[in-house]
């Protein structure tokens, strides 16, 4: 039992650090963080990784992936966290990509995978509906066959970055006769198709991440269906456990905590550093110790998966605990900012750059225990499939 790196792995870590030094800087980070430049800067960052061949750690080499070991993936993620570099958007690379190369046909693979890897195609996810949240199988967006097309009618909601998206992968109902999980199909839909309307939803952080996407007699070629008709739930389920594993946000949490720590070392409370306050230390230590544990929980899950096990309820555990910790870290970050955390964006210098970000992350962070299947639903999954209750 050991967690030490081999000389080859250490050499790889050096290579990653050099790459990050040469390709990622504060300026790029700031542009990714600014909603106005978010999309172009994000694609720019993805292309840098693509050019290096490092865009898809989890994909098989034959489809353009890195073919890395789990240790290499861990080293890569840790190096990103060290410099505060975000991961690339998950919708293509972590969500629909694996479904396409696992369940799609050759033509679909050739058509869609390259754009996902280069970042030229921006994807969004059409799962939730106004009447189907955590109970996803209750979705009612209809797809009726008409020759070589489906005609789509219905509404998707909480669609992150649909305003930027070129394509949406969606679950639609092709049959209503059986159990809710049956009769669902998995479709890839061009967002420029007539009949699609994207309406913004402004979240409590004041930003536009979310959308409602409505479909009014939208024509989608049957050729854009992944796998068999009515089998979409099976494909989506495989994807959901990947999504949940990715939602643990351990690298993100580390970044937040390292910012908090830096800031708490500067911030004075009655002349003494906040970082030296025992109550502050105890609160931060509680979060850090849980995070140290979760980091190894993830590594243990990866090791199990590497030995051929499937990430089922373990991915629920990672999502559950990871999102709780994200919120705990965001709360701490907000509190460290003090009243500056409550200042709304302004053109003026308010004396504090930390506050705006801590407010936005806290506010939007309230969503993480809800999306990807609410944490209460994750608990139901663990209870049933993990504990046998």
């Amino acid at each position, binding site marked *: *039992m*050991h*967690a*030490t*790196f081999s000389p080859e792995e250490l050499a790889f870590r050096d290579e990653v650090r050099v790459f990050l030094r040469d390709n990622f800087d504060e300026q790029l980070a700031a542009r990714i963080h600014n909603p106005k430049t978010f999309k172009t800067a994000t694609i720019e960052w993805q292309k840098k990784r693509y050019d290096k061949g490092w865009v898809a750690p989890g994909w098989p080499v034959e489809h353009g992936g890195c073919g890395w070991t*789990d*240790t290499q993936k*861990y080293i890569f993620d840790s190096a990103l966290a060290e410099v505060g570099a975000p991961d690339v958007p998950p919708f293509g690379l972590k969500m629909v990509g694996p479904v396409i190369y696992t369940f799609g046909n050759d033509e679909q693979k050739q058509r869609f995978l390259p754009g996902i890897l280069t970042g030229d195609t921006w994807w969004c996810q059409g799962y939730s509906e106004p009447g189907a949240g955590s109970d996803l199988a209750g979705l009612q967006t209809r797809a009726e066959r008409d020759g070589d097309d489906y005609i789509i009618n219905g509404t998707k909601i909480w669609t992150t970055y649909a305003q930027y998206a070129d394509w949406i992968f969606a679950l639609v109902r092709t049959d209503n006769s059986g159990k809710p999980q049956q009769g669902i199909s998995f479709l890839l839909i061009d967002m420029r198709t007539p009949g699609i309307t994207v309406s913004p939803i402004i979240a409590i952080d004041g930003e536009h991440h979310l959308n409602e996407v409505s479909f009014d007699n939208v024509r989608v070629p049957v050729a854009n269906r992944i796998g068999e008709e009515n089998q979409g739930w099976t494909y989506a389920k495989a994807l959901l456990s990947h999504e949940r594993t990715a939602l643990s946000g351990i690298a993100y949490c580390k970044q937040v905590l390292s910012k908090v*720590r830096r800031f708490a*070392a500067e911030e004075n409370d009655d002349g003494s550093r906040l*970082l*030296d306050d*025992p109550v502050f*230390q*105890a609160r*931060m*230590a*509680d979060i*850090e*110790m*849980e995070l*140290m*544990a*979760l*980091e*190894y*929980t993830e*590594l*243990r899950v990866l*090791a199990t998966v590497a030995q051929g096990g499937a990430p089922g309820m373990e991915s629920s*555990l990672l999502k*559950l*605990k990871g999102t709780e910790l994200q919120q705990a870290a965001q709360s701490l970050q907000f509190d460290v900012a003090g009243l500056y955390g409550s200042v709304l964006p302004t053109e003026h210098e308010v004396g504090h750059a930390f506050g705006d970000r801590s407010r936005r992350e806290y506010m939007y962070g309230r969503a993480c225990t809800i999306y990807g299947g609410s944490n*209460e639903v994750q*608990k*139901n999954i*663990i*209870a049933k499939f*993990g*504990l*046998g*209750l």
Partner: protein
Amino acid sequence: MDFSLSDEQQLLKDSVDKYMLERYSSEQRRGYMNAEAGFSTAVWSDFAELGWLTVPLPEALGGYGGSVVDTSLLMEAFGRAAVVEPYLGTVLLGAQLLSGGNNATLQARYLEEILSGQCQAAFAYLERRSRHQLTAIDSRAERQGEGFVLNGSKSLVLNGMAADVILVTAWLEDALALFAVPADSAGLSREAFQLMDGQAVANLRFDQLTLATDSLVCEPADSLALIQRVIDEATIAVAAQGLGAMETLLKATVEYSNTRKQFGQPIGKFQALQHRMVDMYTATQQCRSLLVRALCSHSAGEPQAAMDIAALKSMVGKLGRSVAEEAVQLHGGMGVTEELSVGDYLKRLMVIDSLFGDSAWQRRRFAELRYGDVA
């Protein structure tokens, strides 16, 4: 990176699991606990015969040459069965201190007998005012002729009553010295107590107790480092023991919830209870992860090992208690009776929290290591 057990470790795990299954039911355990020594000498002989007493000792001293991974495997299994035999006091503390010292005479005198199960040992380091602080003691030794004379007292010494040799800390001039005190020394008096989890402990008094010249386990200047190292390893092992107890409680609680019926259905069907059991599961998994983390960093001699151990012990202390309290709650009225063993595990986990620094103390240690060095 590799978290799997080696073939030898798997064999060790299988053998201890098999033994506990056959020889350590909760009824058998209660019998052992009520024996005069507070544990079963027959079980102890079995431990010796199975080679478990030799596990952490180096081969040069007749040991198996095992690592913290091996001792944690054993202790985790002991935790699952709530074992009362003094493996911690005799092997992980007593024998490990002797073996880590440089006194070959003491090693020759005691280790072979300890490893064969003929000799019991203990480590007396706490005093009334120490709480968890190794150096907050008043016992003192003075040089007298070729030897020493020892005065003072020690509290709540694990296995202190059965021990044939007791490792005792005392000030010698300005250094914290570590002495091996034979239990039949004149000037030693012992009072026996029992902890609520079944472990036998003793309070000791040293009254003008004379010690031979070869009683020092190591140079006084080295003893604090030796003690810290042995306690660090014992802390990992005790946390593993706690984890074993947590897993037993989780399993028992799930089984009970699937069989106990109220309102016409198994209580495990109620979502409110399911979610509490998921929290128990999550706590257990997080502690398992910290154990793996500490085992890896400690085995590799990495500088962050001290922080990993503090985090592990703090979390097992806190979450172990909370898992046990939840287990009692979910067993309902039966959970608060002696009829079930749920309470035995609660008591064991409470004691584990108090050993070697409780959850709050270990969190402070973690915070000192993590935030203390910031300029």
